[in-house]
């Protein structure tokens, strides 16, 4: 106990450092929030301020004018993130596990295939053609999931992890005890590899949550916009409209009231959304990952 104790001074210093660190992380978010509730004319005149002269919720009322769109986009994003993460972790592990096994006859070929695709891509047009014309996924929610199911990088991470932390002797032992390949994988390898599943899961969650490109390319149906794309689109729209306002006949009067900069900030806050909740959830597996192997050398 005494060995682990640190002096009061060091303790204070460490606390101070972390408090400062926390503040530098949180302040920008606070500023973004304050800007999002500032009156736009005030920003034009005074610039960004922590305590603006005049408050206004115009940005939020612009965004939520048609709140069903946002709710739908939230739904699409959550669906895609959850299903996509589960599927992609599953598929990645199913690829990584066999090529991590030295007794798998074709591991060379499959390892090469995955490595090859990491170096050479087909290019945008063939990629687009496969999904629109071969698989016919245009304007389907699967167009947001399928293109990101398997990332070679994730597969290689998993493969390495399996090789490093699942002893071949263990697999052999389970085989002797009468477990089939599937049972070995799900009952022996999977529980031993939770940290890598969590890591890849987190990667994929972020990847799916932040993706807007697939929406942009494949989706024209408003009901299937993901949240990030909706935001991206709203911002570029607001940008375009305020810059070329003179061109747009119909809505020009409304356009004049478009609260440009504040919309951006309000959207950033909306976009952070539930993804911040994902971190603590995954975090406990990382802690477990660090303790793995600490009991027996």
């Amino acid at each position: 106990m005494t060995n682990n104790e640190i002096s009061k001074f060091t303790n204070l210093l460490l606390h101070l450092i972390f408090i400062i660190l926390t503040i530098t992380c949180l302040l920008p978010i606070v500023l973004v929030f304050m800007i999002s509730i500032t009156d736009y004319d005030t920003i034009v005149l005074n610039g960004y301020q922590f305590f603006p002269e005049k408050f206004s919720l115009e940005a939020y009322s612009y965004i939520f004018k048609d709140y069903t769109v946002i709710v739908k986009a939230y739904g699409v994003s959550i669906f895609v993130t959850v299903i996509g993460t589960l599927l992609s972790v599953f598929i990645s592990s199913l690829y990584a596990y066999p090529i991590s096994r030295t007794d798998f006859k074709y591991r060379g070929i499959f390892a090469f295939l995955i490595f090859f695709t990491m170096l050479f891509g087909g290019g945008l047009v063939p990629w687009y053609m496969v999904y629109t014309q071969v698989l016919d996924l245009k304007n389907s929610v699967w167009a947001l999931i399928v293109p990101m199911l398997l990332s070679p990088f994730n597969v290689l991470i998993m493969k390495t992890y399996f090789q490093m932390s699942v002893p071949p002797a263990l697999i052999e032992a389970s085989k002797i005890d009468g477990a089939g390949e599937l049972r070995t994988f799900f009952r022996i390898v999977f529980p031993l590899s939770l940290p890598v599943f969590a890591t890849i899961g987190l990667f994929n969650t972020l990847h799916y949550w932040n993706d807007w490109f697939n929406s942009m390319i494949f989706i024209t149906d408003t009901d299937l916009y993901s949240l990030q794309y909706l935001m991206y689109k709203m911002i570029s729209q607001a940008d375009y409209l305020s810059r070329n306002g003179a061109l747009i006949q119909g809505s020009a009067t409304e356009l004049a009231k478009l609260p440009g900069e504040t919309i951006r900030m309000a959207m950033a806050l909306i976009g952070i959304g539930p993804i911040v909740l994902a971190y603590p959830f995954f975090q406990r597996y990382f802690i477990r990952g660090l303790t793995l192997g600490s009991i027996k050398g």
Partner: protein
Amino acid sequence: MAIKKGTGLMLSLVLMIGLTLSGCGGNTNNTKNAAPEATAKSTAGPAATETATATATEKTNELEQVELSLYLPGGPDKDVASVEQEINAYLKDKINATIKINQLSWDKPADKVNLMIQSGEVFDMVYTWNFMTNAAKGAYAPLEDLLDKYAKETKAQINPAYLQAATVNGHLYAVPTEKELGQSVGFAFDKAIVDKYGFDVNSITKLEDIEPMLKVIKEKEPGMSPLFMNHTDSLNWFTAYPESEDLDGSNEIPTLLDYKTMKIFNEYDTPEILERLKLIRKWYEAGYINKNGATDKTELKDAVKSGKAWFVYGNMNPTSTNDWTRLAEKPMIIKTLLPVQVGTKSLQGSMLAISRTSKNPERAMMFINLIHTDPVLYNLLTFGIEGKHYKKLDANTVEFIPDSGYNSVSSWMIGNVLLNYLNKDEDPRRVQLYKDWNANSKTSPVIGFVFDSTKVQSQIGALINITKQYKNTLYSGEKDPEPILKEMNSKLKAAGLDAVINELQTQMDAFLAAK
């Protein structure tokens, strides 16, 4: 053992499928590509034969019903489906076609269309982004025969300069929107300020003429920036060479054509530009220009609205007075620096093309003809449904219903602008204004010249980067222009500006010789 082998095989199979689906497998993709490419190519054939059969069936007046797809920028609007329905009901008796409006929104619509074009997707009509590149690549169907056959009225009424500007290598590849000819730069001043100090804005004929006004504002309006700039709007709107034209398709590389000598030159390597930049520098040092002009993100209209600036500048059109009054929410006065310049590029501003992959090009052309000649259809397409998206105030004037769910298809995108109802805020003299504007315009001597940039594509990319890097600094007046210009020019030269100029000149000479 047999079971184990089975599961192993199954796992590998699942993986193979995963790999194919994920699209990461470059090698598996290639074999699959062959099929769609083949189908894409073969559509061009039937399209041609269908044209022939269509003319035959037309004689019996029994057009088979088809669906036409139309890709436009903006939106997507919530109510587009109900507008489609109305249009389809109306079109049934006219050309027996239904229309599917695809709105691509304002974020990189050009990229989306390029993907569609490159992958050979089947679609009918599209607003032309990157017109010259795509036309040269053969993305659009040639229209001259279709226009003669199915759009006689349009051909008769449209300004021939427009058709000339849409012609590449002897083929007409798009039907331009009928609107004002060309563009002109100018100012829109806050009327209150102009009246307060009694400025004579009509006396302004060139950029330099606003200097005394800037001085007055500087002295008497401390809270106001006499000349407000931001990262997109600087004085590069005002060219230092009146008798010239920017020819390249990119709009970003420093090559101009001198009308007098018909020679291409680097606009940043001339005494005129140095003089212009020195003037801006002088204004900056006198405190007329806001300090962060090169990076400020405030829109001009917002700056005017909030009283930070007192005028906006840039492209002006015949109805700008009203547009800017609406946007800045205060009365504005326009001063356009005449004459209006009409070049190929300004004519190509907005056009509608028929895709090479279209299965019904002749019906698409009939539709295009209608939006140029039929006010009912055109107003339906651009304004939406009466009572739902707009209210009629009198026979020809309408008022938009706010947040109606259909307002992104604008008349400047397609068709004939003069068929439109008047918006209640619009100048009632619109038709007359357009006529005057067109009468005042000066047509480029090289109309119809289109630069094929394929040979110097990589240089152009590099040049655009360099220009972007320096433009804002130069035009904001923040630094002494002379050394910066020198540095910029040496970089431009190193990046292959001469090759681009030579290529442009060669093509220009060939164009002039053919003329």
